[in-house]
């Protein structure tokens, strides 16, 4: 078990390393560099030379990659091209905000999704299920900016109950984001609930139709005991991986929501950095998102393994 864990960890680290190379190479291949981007028109002659000197851009790419990577390992992500500020600091605040948003969405979304998924799976084809399933498809297909706009229109413009955009500054403590954060959380929770609900629903249906649930019924096991003891432990296994994907998505892929609500998260920072051609920042964020992705999926796989005797015994017996 431990050996397996270490092996997965090692593979995860290699994945992150390869991704970091791709990110670095990608930025490197783009025409221009941090200095041409920052200096724009003035990027010529001595000024450019000086800038390059200062940012160490004259050394070979491989050396710069190794420097960047080993600094990143120590938590030092370098300085941004324009502001001359520590990227780790800038990104740190944004990462916290993203984590706050993600955590709120997860706390609201995951229990709701699992509960509703189980309900609609157990009452398959009944009115509850039809309502929930149709709702889920709606939530999945309507683009986020549309639902976000509608919610802003209803709750902040018409009813005036909730603030429609976030005005708190990026470095403010978490508590100051309430109640501004509520609408973005609702939009995110809706989308992720829809995805998780559908997975849980189909998995519950499959398990409730399985031979072992039929057998438990024929053994005289009371219905709710079948649901909780025989069915759910098996039906919820696939949910672990979907939740992991959702977490990764929440931390890196919710650009649209952040833009609509003016939320100072990682995604928006990435967009800003791209439009400013602030390449060191782009690199840093891409690296963080990739690491989160790998980390979350690794955790999910390990959890699945612990929860699924089929996989667990593979490593603990014999």
């Amino acid at each position, binding site marked *: 078990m431990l050996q397996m864990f270490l092996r997965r960890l090692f593979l995860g680290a290699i994945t992150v390393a390869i991704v970091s190379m791709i990110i670095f190479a990608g930025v490197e291949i783009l025409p221009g560099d941090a200095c041409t981007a920052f200096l724009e028109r003035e990027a010529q002659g001595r000024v450019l030379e000086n800038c390059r000197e200062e940012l160490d851009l004259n050394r070979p790419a491989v050396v710069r990659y190794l420097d960047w990577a080993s600094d990143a390992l120590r938590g030092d992500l370098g300085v941004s091209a324009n502001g001359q500020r520590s990227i780790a600091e800038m990104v740190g605040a944004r990462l916290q905000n993203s984590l706050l948003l993600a955590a709120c969405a997860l706390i609201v979304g995951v229990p709701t999704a699992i509960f509703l998924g189980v309900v609609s799976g157990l009452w398959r084809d009944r009115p509850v299920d039809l309502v929930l399933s149709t709702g889920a498809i709606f939530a999945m297909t309507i683009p986020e900016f549309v639902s976000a706009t509608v919610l802003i229109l209803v709750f902040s413009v018409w009813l005036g109950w909730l603030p429609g955009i976030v005005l708190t500054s990026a470095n403010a403590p978490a508590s100051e984001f309430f109640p501004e954060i509520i609408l973005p959380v609702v939009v995110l929770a809706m989308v992720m609930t829809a995805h998780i609900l559908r997975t849980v629903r189909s998995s519950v249906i499959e398990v409730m*139709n*399985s*031979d*072992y*649930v*039929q*057998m*438990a*019924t*024929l*053994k*005289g*096991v*009371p*219905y709710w005991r079948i649901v909780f*003891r*025989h069915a759910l*432990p*098996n039906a919820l296994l696939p949910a672990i991986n979907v939740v992991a994907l959702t977490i990764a998505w929440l931390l890196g892929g919710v650009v649209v929501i952040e833009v609509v609500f003016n939320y100072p998260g990682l995604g928006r920072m990435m967009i800003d950095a791209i439009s400013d051609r602030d390449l060191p920042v782009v690199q840093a964020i891409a690296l963080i998102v990739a690491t989160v992705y790998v980390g979350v999926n690794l955790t999910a796989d390990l959890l699945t393994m612990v929860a*699924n*005797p*089929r996989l667990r*015994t593979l490593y603990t*017996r014999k």
Partner: protein
Amino acid sequence: MTDTPVIQLSDLSIGFTGRAGHTLPVLRNIDLTVRPGESIGLVGESGSGKSTVALAAMGYLKRGLRVLGGTARFEGHDMFALKRRELETLRGGQLALIPQNSGQSLTPTLRIGAQLTEALRLHSRLDPAQFPDRVLELLGQVRLPDPQTITRRYPHELSGGQQQRVAIAMALAGEPRALLLDEPTTGLDVTTQAHILELLRDLARETGMAMVYVSHDLGAIARVCDRVVVMYAGEVVMEGSARQVLTAPTHPYARGLLASIPKLSDPHLPMALGGRPPAPGGAGDGCAFVDRCALASDLCRATRPMLAPGPGGAPVRCHHADRADTLPMSSQGDHAARAEAGTAPVLSLQDLEIRYSRPGLLDRLRGREDTRPATVDDITISIAKGETLGLVGESGSGKSTILKTIAGLLPPAGGEIRFDGDAPLPRSVEQRGPDHLRRIQLIFQNPDDSLNPRHTIAEILEQPLKLYFGLSGTALQDRCVEILERVRLGGHYLDRLPSQLSGGEKQRVAVARAFAANPDLVLCDEVTSALDVSVQAAVLELLNDLKAAQGTTYVFVSHDLAVVRALSDRVAVLYQGRLCEIGPSAEVYALPSHPYTEVLLGAVLEPDPDTAPKLTADDVIELSPPAKGCPFQRRCPRKIGARCDTDTPPWQTRDDGHAIRCHIPLDDLHRQQQADS
């Protein structure tokens, strides 16, 4: 014994609503009475409604099905009128089911101990403090070795036979008055099956428990049941004592079913029952069997026969039951096509050794040899052109492993494979040229796993034709149709998906795909094991025809000794990856036999209520071969002492090529075996 029935189904009809909105019956007017202590066999092809009957007796319907009329009673309770709570106390308690596939019927996330304890908590009057002991007692009762360890295992950590025994133990936990068994031994080894059936017989006799035994295996039915009910297309077509139904059936379908069973005593190919049963609702006004019946008349097409006493007194549903005895009921099929003698070997295996375990990295660096016994070892066989070699042995004996190695899917650890007199075959598929790949084809047990569900039959057949022969356009199309016709399917199957075919049809497509490559050697891995007997007979006939027409060489693997006998020229018996006996089929199936072959043959159940299997007291399937001596030493009933534990027994070969690997001299062996039989 009182005469009030335990289970009584009266005029029970069950059906579902089809796509067009019509009600389609799955069971039609079933009457079935089971008295205390009685064992009833329910036989019929898959889809005939056997499982539905067994589940209905428990008041359970699969999703989508509903009762159209009639009642199902257990000790007077109307099962479909009971409340959920009342059903829960009866089910698993007084009335228990042993499911068709126990592997999938045990909850994967719960330990065996927990699942048995749950059954006790629900239905046992014992004090909870006694549950752990009772669990061990139940597991011991079903002859599971080391019950203590088993309780801590998860279902997937047990073998098929062990899972089946756990399911039986669970059913017995509530001390049931009636036990429903849905194909409880299908797919198990002959030895395991025979032991489980003996166990059930004994239990029923000891406890006076009634049994309903669902199976398409008439051998098993003959062993366990007093009375047999034959079902066809959702109807009871015949009912009577086991002897009457199995020896003098008065319904044409029952006779056909008997004729399609390969029997050990009979070297003929079994006779296939042509056609297939009507889909639910497709039976029309007349007899449901009319399209497949040799006695069908206009009367049969016009009116549905009623269940009425037939010639022997047993109820039968047939207008012409008096003429049924004109139909054959033993396998009068062809003799298998035989190989021409003296041809050069197509395939020869020389000292083949196969291992699944790879030495660990550390051991490899230190240059250490793997000292564990190999999975398969010391296999030397040569197969002549046009010959069929049967390979038999229990599950885990290495049959499929050898086929995989010949096919190049699993490189051998030692020895060599020569094909068609050439230099040794490259060890793995990647190293083999397209010509070799074409000439050696493999057919698997389960067509569902080997046919891509998203490809049409045309796409499946086109692949080898394009790859090996570069066909395209109409030539390709024509060839596909031709191949399909050769396996008796026809061009209208081209656009279908595998899911739209029956099990037998799918297996024919798999055969067709193998033959599309125009192979010299076809490796068949349990190709009929997942099929009904009647379909199995058809597939065997097909393989035999193709062989007669093209001189193809087969290696035919099966755990069913009768099937192997029907098709093979020579048979090799495998135990724990080692050869025990090899020779012409007639010799291998006659005395003298290797002691292991003797155990296998003794466990075969013939569809004849007057025969009993000869079982060895305690044979438990082993997991790994012993390091030295005879591989069969731990189970051998004729073991002669320490020599068997230490010395590898020699091959004793007779003039006809029949060879047995045992320390006992053949003449002695022959004498002992004759004395015992």
